[in-house]
């Protein structure tokens, strides 16, 4: 072990580790992610209603459940119909939620720019620009709606 520590390579190794950690930390700082939006994206792609509903504050959860059904069926099928592709069953439909600027509007609320990319069979077919209201309650973030 003493031999390893005395080697110049070890110093270079340490140098690389330090820079890797620094670059990793910097990546995380430069690409901040709001967990609730990430959870929303995952729940929509997995079709997980409960995870989807959990993203919303209590008073909006009932509404969110209805919204999920609409998102899951109407929007996707509508898109496929528009494209003339027929039923959604044979196609892989997914969304990606890109996160933009988040602006604090009060101590507990903020507005976040979100871009929703909708993919059909891996091809991005549409882009929606949304401002999502986010509420912080007991240290946890919730959505107050799907935004506008």
């Amino acid at each position, binding site marked *: 072990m003493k*031999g*390893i520590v005395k*080697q110049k*390579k*070890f110093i*270079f*190794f340490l140098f*690389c*580790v330090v*820079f*890797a950690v620094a*670059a*990793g930390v*910097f*990546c*995380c700082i*430069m*690409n901040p*992610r709001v967990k609730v939006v990430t959870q929303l*994206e995952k729940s929509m792609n997995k079709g997980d209603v409960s995870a989807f509903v959990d993203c919303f504050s209590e008073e909006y959860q009932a509404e969110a459940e209805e919204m999920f059904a609409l998102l899951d069926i109407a929007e996707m099928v509508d898109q496929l119909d528009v494209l003339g592709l027929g039923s959604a069953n044979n196609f892989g439909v997914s969304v*990606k*939620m*890109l*996160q*933009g*600027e988040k*602006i*604090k*509007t*009060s*101590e507990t*609320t903020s*507005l976040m*720019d*979100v*871009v929703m*990319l909708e993919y059909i069979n891996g*091809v*991005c*077919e*549409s*882009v929606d*620009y949304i*401002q999502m*209201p986010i509420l912080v309650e007991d240290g946890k973030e919730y959505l*107050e709606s799907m935004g*506008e």
Partner: protein
Amino acid sequence: MKNWMKRIWIAVAFVAVFLLTGCGNGSTVNTYLNIDESLSGYRDMELVISESTFDDYFNGSLDDLNNVITNYIPEGMVWSVDTAISAYTYHFAIYFSSVEEYTNTVNNILGWESTINMTFPDSVWASGIYVEEDFTSEDLLYWLSDAIVEEGLVSDSYASQIFSIGDTNVVYTDMVIPTSSSIYVNEIEYVEISEINFYTERNELGAYDRTVEFVVSADSMTSKGDAIREYMDGVKPSNAEYEEETNDAGNTVFTFHGTLTDAAEMTTFMASLFGQENYSVAEPELGDASSPFVFSEYFVENMSFANYLVGNMYTDMNYLVKNSENGYQAFACNGTISSKYPGYEDTNFPGYSSLLSGSWTGEGAGPEVGILFQKYYPVSALEVSTSRSLFGKWSRETKLTIAAVPTDEEKEIILAKISAMADPLAEEAVAEESDAAESVTERMSAEASEEAPATTMDPNLQEELSIADDTEEEETFIEIEYADVDIDSESTDESWIVTIGLSGSESAMRASTELLLGAGNEMMYAAGGNPLAVVKNESYLELLDYGDFMGSVSNDYSYIYTLDLGLGAKQEYCDEGNGTATLEGGKLVVEGNSYYIDVEYAGTYIDVFAVIFWVFVGLAVLLLLWMILTVVIKKSKEKKANAPVKAVAPSAFCTNCGAPRNTDSAFCTQCGTKF
């Protein structure tokens, strides 16, 4: 409702009796409207009731009738009675010191809005008397009919036979002019003015050339030519040139021309011609955004022809404008640039456009004309380059190529306007200089719901927004941040290029973009994927409406929008609006010919910091493996080196000459070879 029915019934019966009995053998109402030159006077309504009528139809005494009159006479009316042997003559009078007072009193008695026009012009243009009313004495005495029936002095069946309409006269100075029961007297002698024309042009010196023409008919000139000339000479503005000529139609044209630099001079000129109280000019702010590349001058004129036209007399009026040779175009405008419209060509006035024309009387409000002069510097090319640094700082360079080169003075004005629009800090600094005591802190209170988008703020500016929560009274202050602004320009032989650089955070860019281009513009950036992933998703949105800002564009106008996405960018989605897009060398280029840039882009990019992370992780792993390998190899060598070696006995003979070796000596005793 009952009263109205009764009045109508009485009025109908009144007229019927009047017609059936010739002039009504009961009582008559004669009217004398006495007026003097100061428009004061009185209206005397004389009611003569014959003794026989009184005896036949009235229940009660004369005192009873007088009591009823005393109790019921409306405010503003006075009465008296003259009792002769065979008749009782009542006088009901309304005294007034002005037409306004007379009108108010009459309105109070009638209970509805009456119209009274009264004028006694004594000028070169008109002289005589003009009186017009839309009511009769019967209307003013309806209360008496009601009262005597109400008090039982006359039965309903007889009431209609008591009063009849007599003569109506207007008495002015010594004249007694008979008229109908609803007074209309027009005894005015007019001098006809065929046309009044206004010509306006903005000249090269920035002043307005204003010409006013009065076209007077030949007949008028024949009858009152000298008086008209004397009048025109009297009203000639001090800052005007004046001439008289006869046109092809034989009419005389009096022309007044002035070069007027501002509203004050305009007022002096026009008020002299039309009277101080008959002219005003205002320079209101235009109600909507204007481009820095458009020079706008707006004023609104209100005028009345009361000094020239009396009563129903009218004249044709033409308000004409001319586009200047130095580029100023004239428009009619109603307070906003969007409401402007060019005049129409009138063949009677070659070279001029008519903004307003028609017949006008001298009564009431005269013509109101909003006139907007605008000079355009059309934009022939728009180049917009947007980029976002690795650290999230945005920058957008807008380069506008102006097809014509403005004068140096105009350039300064344009750049100052852009600076004022884009850089509130500069404006604030100017305000600070002008009023040091004034605080730069501006607090704007605004109620907003929780969903309301917050604005950003520059800490230096210390401008604050108060956003009051719907449910809580506490106020939160959010600072507005604006982008850094860099404005530059350069001239070529044929064009002038203005470059506007904005840089700052996304919020700051949004705020400054709104200042510069107005509301409704959008910009947004969003990214997604694992923070440590080398390839990440990103999306840009930019909606930039340069329409209001540019003001106008040339026929060959086009735009180029460049979005710097960086190397490794891969497009997944692009909606370039009305343009055409290409992605090459990490740059999205959209070209088109609209003033509205609308780009929605989504794709992937390579995160340099993630690459650095993985490179160092890779290097660290390699080094670690190398170090482990090195240690393993070294250990293996050391093991070999430490293995036991058998001792070899030195040779007993010299290896060179073969002579026997002496073990104690280091050299061969025969040949000297070193052992």
